[in-house]
């Protein structure tokens, strides 16, 4: 085995960097098992009371279910829109597709808070505030650029000859897409699914403008809770958020490997 002389230095640096990035996240786990009434580290006693409190907190639980449903619906819609859109842009190269691509991905470059404000103004007049439909549309603005980018790159990297071979073998355009193009895009589709789900599930800035007492999401409710109270309930909610994220990442890793899904 060849040993890189600087590898020990690299390892120490990477370890420190990882600790720096992860320390606040890791801190949440012990605090969530706190027996205290206030948010403090280290806790003076241990208990499961904040998990019980979370399960008993109907506002938090309904916000969690809303977030879960919202992320699912937003992800499915993002794919339904972005897959044909990326095909039209990359393969069919319809006139103005360049412009459309830039338009679709522009929200990535705009300050999210400005977007949120703009959406608030529009939705207020349409009665979409604090509705599920309103949240779905708001989140789509943020998730579509990710989905479109990931899927366009994935489609652009495919060997066009495979599709041409399929056509020469007698497959009509729709069959070529369904039997060859789509299955070959699978890594890109998994990556887009994971990204859309996580972005929607974590979204706070735009959602803040669109939620209300009638309907709220878990990250927003968490934010409101911290504003009014400083108890360790937020730690158990955070653990819930982290576990959801980890679950998505692990599903991706199990189905095709993280590197393949996100690097290609």
């Amino acid at each position: 085995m060849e040993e890189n002389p600087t590898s020990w230095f690299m390892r120490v640096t990477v370890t420190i960097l990882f600790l720096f990035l992860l320390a606040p996240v890791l801190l949440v786990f012990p605090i969530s098992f706190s027996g205290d009434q206030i948010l403090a580290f280290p806790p003076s006693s241990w208990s499961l009371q904040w998990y019980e409190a979370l399960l008993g907190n109907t506002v938090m639980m309904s916000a969690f279910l809303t977030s879960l449903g919202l992320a699912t619906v937003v992800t499915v819609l993002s794919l339904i829109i972005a897959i044909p859109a990326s095909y039209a842009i990359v393969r069919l190269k319809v006139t103005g597709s360049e412009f459309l691509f830039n338009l679709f991905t522009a929200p990535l470059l705009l300050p999210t808070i400005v977007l949120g404000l703009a959406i608030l103004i529009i939705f207020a007049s349409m009665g979409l505030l604090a509705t599920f439909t309103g949240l779905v549309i708001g989140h789509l603005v943020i998730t579509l650029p990710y989905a479109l980018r990931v899927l366009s790159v994935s489609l652009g990297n495919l060997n066009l000859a495979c599709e041409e071979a399929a056509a020469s073998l007698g497959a009509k355009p729709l069959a070529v897409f369904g039997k060859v193009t789509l299955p070959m895009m699978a890594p890109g589709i998994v990556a887009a699914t994971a990204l859309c789900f996580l972005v929607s599930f974590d979204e706070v800035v735009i959602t803040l403008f669109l939620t209300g007492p009638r309907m709220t999401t878990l990250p927003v409710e968490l934010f409101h809770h911290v504003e009014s109270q400083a108890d360790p309930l937020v730690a158990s909610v955070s653990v819930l958020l982290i576990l959801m994220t980890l679950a998505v990442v692990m599903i991706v890793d199990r189905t095709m490997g993280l590197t393949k899904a996100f690097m290609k």
Partner: protein
Amino acid sequence: MMHQTIKRDGVETIGDPYLCLEGMNKKYGLVEVISNLNLAVRKGELIALLGPSGCGKTTTLRMIAGLIAPTAGRITVGGRDVTQIAPHGRDMGLVFQSYALFPHMTVAKNVAFGLEMRGLSRADIANKVAKALGMVQLEHLAERKPRELSGGQQQRVALARALVIEPSILLLDEPLSNLDAKLRDEMRTQIRDIQQQLGITTVFVTHDQVEALSMCDRIVVMKGGLIEQVGTPHEIYERPATPFVASFVGRTNRVKGKRTADGCIRIGSSMIRSARPAVQDDVMVMVRPHRIHIDWNAASTEQQGETANRMAAVLSRITFVGDVIQYHFDVGGSEFIVEESTKKSQVSRDQGDKAVLSWSVEDTLVFGADQ
């Protein structure tokens, strides 16, 4: 003897044409990549489109496949006009340089794809797939995924996939270019054997003259979107129609000369003759390096009989290439390369050695200098 007239354009009349390209033209914006291409291919023939990159050979193949729409022209197969038909309705088998196997399907599924598209019964498909894989000796790899195969195996799967649908025409787009040299030789033989066994009309795109010469019934040499010459490998090699064909197919010496009043050609101070009379005063003379004989002991360049050209030369450099040895001669200011096969007891020669080069009048190719 072989003194047929050489056809200068691609329009050729052959008996029983099967695949016909008439007045094909392709423009990208103002750039014309194919201009007025006419070609007739016989049933069961293996024809090569040979030329350097950018000569339009791949564009021509893709137009036949229906992957590129021609700007003008007509394509017929067995009398049926297919010009406006989409690729999936053309019934042509395509093999790509990049193999283009479906990565998410097994070898057997790849081969079965075209049959499934034709709605064959499952038993029929299994039967035909097994037969096609047997033809390329890959039955034992039927359940593997393409990424688990070597390049040569992948290309054989691609060939089986294209042939299993029993297409009217087989189109091969540089199918051997991604393979290493040894494998390329094997595949060459295998493709030719299968092609002849099935008697399938085949168009083969290549930039490799050895492939074209060794595998094909006829060769179409292309340059800049135009056909330079159509002919059998023998015709292309022995009677190239243009200087481009002469230098692209096989190696050749090229020397400038002047026509004299008596129909001979003067190169420096020497006079030579050619089988075909020169058509211009300024000419380009070409001679294949291995067709030249070296006489190290000749006393003079006096003509012996009427069949040979003789020129005095001085050895300037020797290059040993293994199976052949290349002698670089200076002939009145021009360089002549002569190739001899190496022998065990090669007499060593030195720079400055004098010799007389001779070659037959038949082997002297003469072109106009501005051609």
